[in-house]
């Protein structure tokens, strides 16, 4: 490889390698310039006074409050559904399973993690069709169904994080508990899991981000453009990502488009915040290890 070609390659790397960073900056700057003036309490609460809206005295129609609460509830519900199978599955893979069984289950979880999210949404939708044939009118597309589908979406992430963090525990720490007479269960619950708490919480936070941003799943399982505040988990609901998609395809005037930009900034900031939290946890962890 001669000198000129190498120079060329280096130049190529600098130009194309900084492109992702440049695009990230463009997205942020563009969102702030176009949508910055939409930010404010009015974006979320519309023209209703904040306290009235929060206590449910008055309905918010032209604000993002219903979409925000919809997304919030959705994420919490799907996390509640996913956390026990996810963490227990991870513990099983790391601590109990035989190698063959572990490989088999690992393959299944990898496939689930690789499934297009719209397929998972379609599966949720198919469930309502099949249920509808046997018990008409019981379960339609609703918040609960979306949460179930999203839970299925994030379970493989939780399993894999739990498994990886348990596997990364050094042998001396792993053997200390049993040497003192602890049972395997005690060792897992009182030694191994607490030792990797930061990793676990980091993984859970990233899974939350994944659930909050996904649009394809909720689109097929019950998110609609206007449903008002969430009243029950068995009803259709509004959600932030779906609102952004909806506005992009059918906005009718400038004000609506502006609130679409506001919603995009909100969702972006939400995911950024979650990411920041995960990073901080990770760094806290590595500092503790060095001490």
């Amino acid at each position, binding site marked *: 490889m001669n000198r000129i070609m*190498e120079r060329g*390659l*280096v130049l*190529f*790397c*600098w*130009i*194309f*390698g*900084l492109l*992702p*960073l440049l695009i*990230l900056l463009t*997205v942020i700057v*563009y*969102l702030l310039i*176009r949508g910055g003036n939409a930010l404010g309490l009015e974006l979320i609460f519309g023209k209703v006074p904040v306290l009235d809206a929060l206590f449910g005295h008055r309905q918010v129609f032209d604000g993002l409050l219903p979409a925000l609460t919809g997304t919030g509830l959705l994420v919490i519900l799907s996390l509640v559904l996913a956390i*026990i*199978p996810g963490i*227990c*599955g991870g513990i*099983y893979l790391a601590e*109990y*399973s035989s190698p063959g069984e572990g490989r088999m*289950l690992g393959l299944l*979880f*990898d*496939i689930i993690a*690789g*499934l*297009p999210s*719209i*397929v*998972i949404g*379609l*599966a949720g939708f*198919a469930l309502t069709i*099949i249920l509808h044939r046997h018990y008409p009118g019981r379960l339609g597309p609703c918040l609960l169904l979306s949460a179930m589908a999203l839970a*299925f979406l994030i379970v493989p992430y939780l*399993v894999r994080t739990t498994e990886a963090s348990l596997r990364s525990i050094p042998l001396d720490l792993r053997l200390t508990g049993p040497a003192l007479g602890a*049972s395997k*269960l005690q060792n897992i619950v009182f030694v191994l899991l607490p030792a990797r708490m930061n990793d676990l919480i980091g993984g859970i936070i990233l899974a939350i981000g994944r659930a*909050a*941003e996904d*649009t*394809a799943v909720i*689109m*097929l399982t019950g998110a609609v453009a206007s449903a008002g505040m969430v009243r029950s988990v068995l009803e259709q609901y509004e959600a932030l990502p779906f609102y*952004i*998609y909806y506005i*992009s395809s059918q906005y009718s005037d400038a004000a609506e488009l502006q609130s*679409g*930009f506001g919603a*995009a900034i909100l*969702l*972006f900031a939400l*995911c950024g915040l979650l*990411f920041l939290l995960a*990073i901080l946890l990770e760094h806290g962890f*590595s500092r503790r290890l060095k001490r």
Partner: protein
Amino acid sequence: MINAVKSFEHFCRAMAMGSGLLLIAILFMMAFLGWPLIESGRFIALFSTEWNPQGKSYGILPMVMGSLRITLLALFFSLPMSISAACLTELLAPRSLRRLLLIAIRFMAGIPTVVYGFVAIFLLVPLMREYFIQGSGFSIITASLVLAVLIAPTMIIFFVNGMQSVPRPYCAAVDSLGARPMQKFVYLLLPQAYPTFLVGIVLGLGRAMGDTLISLMLAGNSVAMPESIAESGRTLTAHIALVIAADFSSMEFTTIFVCGLTLTLFAICLILSIRLLDHFGSGRVIQVENPRRPGHE
């Protein structure tokens, strides 16, 4: 106490097995709902090029081709960017910039797809319309450009990991021979780490193929067989979303389950090929004594 220990193990096993088996249940459910189409003898016709619900022809081939084209184009745009960024973060950039780049790239992996799509509609689409292609600006190439950005972080992270897993003694040997960064990349890192590189590329492919929102928002969604990449096209994923939103009629509706099955089979093939690559890759690394770089975080 023994009892509690045993029952916890059984509980964990049930949880792991249960979530894994749900995948198989989902496959059966979609096959069951797509069955009428297969049974009615239109299975071969499914893979024809014509989609015309009035004329009772439900060929999904245009969508399959749309998906493939968008995915491969996205990969084509994304590869130079991803490899360069990985080289920057591992070899070329000064230390402080490396950290920044790595954090920015991990952050990019978490940006909601719908936000990318939303920004692209108002920023990239007018640009494409004005300067590059005729028509509305919603086209296969527009969607694949945005998808390229979407899948880049996944690939970059794998490329960087692959380079970091090259044995330390090899790096030291090459460094002490006075290799410049690009020489090190071309003659040492690339030949040593290519299985990991391939895994990253396959995962990027999977992400591009599985993404719904970008192609739904940017590709234009026409069902005709696309003639060129500057035309509008429809992917399998966008097709599912559009048909569900449109109506509930019988045969047209069952095709989406066939689309879903196609996507699932594709995902399974990708994961299996990653497994093969991993197997191949680990066979190479085992020969060395200390496969992990000691200084790595």
